[in-house]
């Protein structure tokens, strides 16, 4: 038996989620008294994974897998799990992870718990807590099958340093043409911008900003903080901001360390999607805005006055760090 973690990378480099799933996998391996095996596909340098407990690393190098492909990746994970006798497979909740994890589950005849937020609360029966109702609640789910797939919710476990000696091994999966029936054509990525999925800090604006032209103050604040920008649903519906920035129950979920909501009232659908952020700051002219009830820190004030001053103060603060 062993625990298999899939550590994803972007253009060869690991992001935080790879270290988070590895840290988590290490703890699950300890709980189940087995070993951790980490699978990588076309990563440049896997040595960093050793800092988070990766005792064994399987390295796949294959040009066909250069672009993410859900079916092919699911096949690779299946073969790696079978080779290692892994009965628990852990995958992150990135757009790629949540795309191919259900395929892995069917491949391995495994029960799948997505959006897990904690370590299993018990191993036998295997029970794990996961987000439900768009973070309005949690569901304790039992996985009944002998093989199990866990989708770990981003930023729910964090990184746990745990230096180990690593044994690296090349692994050559068998791929078939059928794996590539969905083929990559092109990609469009905003360059030089932090994505909401990767961001530790998210600065979000609502209808209180009155027009898309006023977004400069949001972007400048995000810049000093190295944050991603986001918005409420009406803001994207009005075309002030692109849909990719819409967060909430029907948009992207946010689980950053810090979420700053500016001119957002805090409707239930908005809160549902951003609730799992650790710390929330609200800036709103209306002291009765519902968002204050869900926030950690609040400022009653006009965004056009407060935000530029906050940005300047933060610049000073950062300069003195």
């Amino acid at each position: 038996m062993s625990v298999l973690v899939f550590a994803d990378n972007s253009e060869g480099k690991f992001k935080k989620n790879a270290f988070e799933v590895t840290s988590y996998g290490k703890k699950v391996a300890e709980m189940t008294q087995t070993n951790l095996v980490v699978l990588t596909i076309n990563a440049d340098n896997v040595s960093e994974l050793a800092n988070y407990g990766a005792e064994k690393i399987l390295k796949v190098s294959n040009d066909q897998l250069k672009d993410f492909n859900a079916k092919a990746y699911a096949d690779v994970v299946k073969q790696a799990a079978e080779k290692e006798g892994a009965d628990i497979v852990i995958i992150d909740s990135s757009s790629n992870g949540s795309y191919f994890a259900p395929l892995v589950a069917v491949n391995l005849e495994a029960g799948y718990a997505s959006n897990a937020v904690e370590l299993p609360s018990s191993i036998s029966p295997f029970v794990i807590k996961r987000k439900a109702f768009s973070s309005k609640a949690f569901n304790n789910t039992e996985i009944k099958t002998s093989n199990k797939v866990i989708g770990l919710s981003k930023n729910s476990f964090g990184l746990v340093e745990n230096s180990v000696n690593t044994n690296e091994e090349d692994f050559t999966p068998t791929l078939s043409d059928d794996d590539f029936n969905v083929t990559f054509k092109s990609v469009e990525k905003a360059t030089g911008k932090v994505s909401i999925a990767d961001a530790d800090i998210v600065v979000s604006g609502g209808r209180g900003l009155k027009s898309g032209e006023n977004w400069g103050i949001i972007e400048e604040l995000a810049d000093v903080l190295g944050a991603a920008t986001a918005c409420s649903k009406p803001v994207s519906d009005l075309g002030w901001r692109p849909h990719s920035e819409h967060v909430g129950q029907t948009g992207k979920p946010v689980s950053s360390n810090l979420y700053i909501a500016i001119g957002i009232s805090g409707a239930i659908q908005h809160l549902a999607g951003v609730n799992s952020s650790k710390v929330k700051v609200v800036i709103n002219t209306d002291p009765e805005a519902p968002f204050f009830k869900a926030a950690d820190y609040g400022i009653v004030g006009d965004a056009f006055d407060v935000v530029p001053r906050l940005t300047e103060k933060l610049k000073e603060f950062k300069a003195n760090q």
Partner: protein
Amino acid sequence: MKILVCISHVPDTTSKINFKDDNSKFDSTGVQYVINPHDEFVLTRAMWFKEKQGASLTVVNVGDASSEPTLRKALAIGADDAIRVNAEPTDGFYVAKQLAEVIKNGGYDLVLAGRESLDYNGGMVPGMIASLIDYNFVNACIGIDVEENQVTATREIDGGKEVVSTELPLIIGGQKGLVEDKDLRIPNMRGIMMARKKPLQVVEPIDTNTTTASISFDKPEPRSACKMVDSDNLDELISLLHNEAKVI
């Protein structure tokens, strides 16, 4: 082209979420149910294929009789017919198996489902179906065009979007972007009248296993009161974020 749209019947997004029987069951008292919002976007995109490319459009739900109003609403929006698999949707795998059976029997070319349903947020049914019946699969789909057998689809990725090409038969997990909010249709009187006469077939579930079970629910911990900071004292906010919350 034969299209099947999978419809999940979920609590309205404004619902307060409560549990009963010692937190083991969802309490539906006073809860209004709606078409899962992601499914509404895919259904609207499916209507475009029906109107512009002559596709047939069936909607399906796995659920008990209480989900029929939701299916009727989909018929009122414009689907041709509906299927209800008469079973409690106990877990994602069970639902995927039931839907896979409906798809095999109906020979659908294109299956459109929402990226996730807003109750259990599993995000697993479309991918599991694809794997069970070996259909091509695109998740978090925000754009789709079909010419003959050829499909061009756009999917959302972290920090951008990606265009892929593939072929029918295909299943997608779709979301807003396939159509916009303003394109969503509110059923009109004529649609509602016609929907009453459209076929809604109830089929019995196939015998299959579940792989997970819901044990209990928890609510998020109540949070401590919001600390208010004077708008003239932004240094205090920075100090709180740095020293107390430790997030900057």
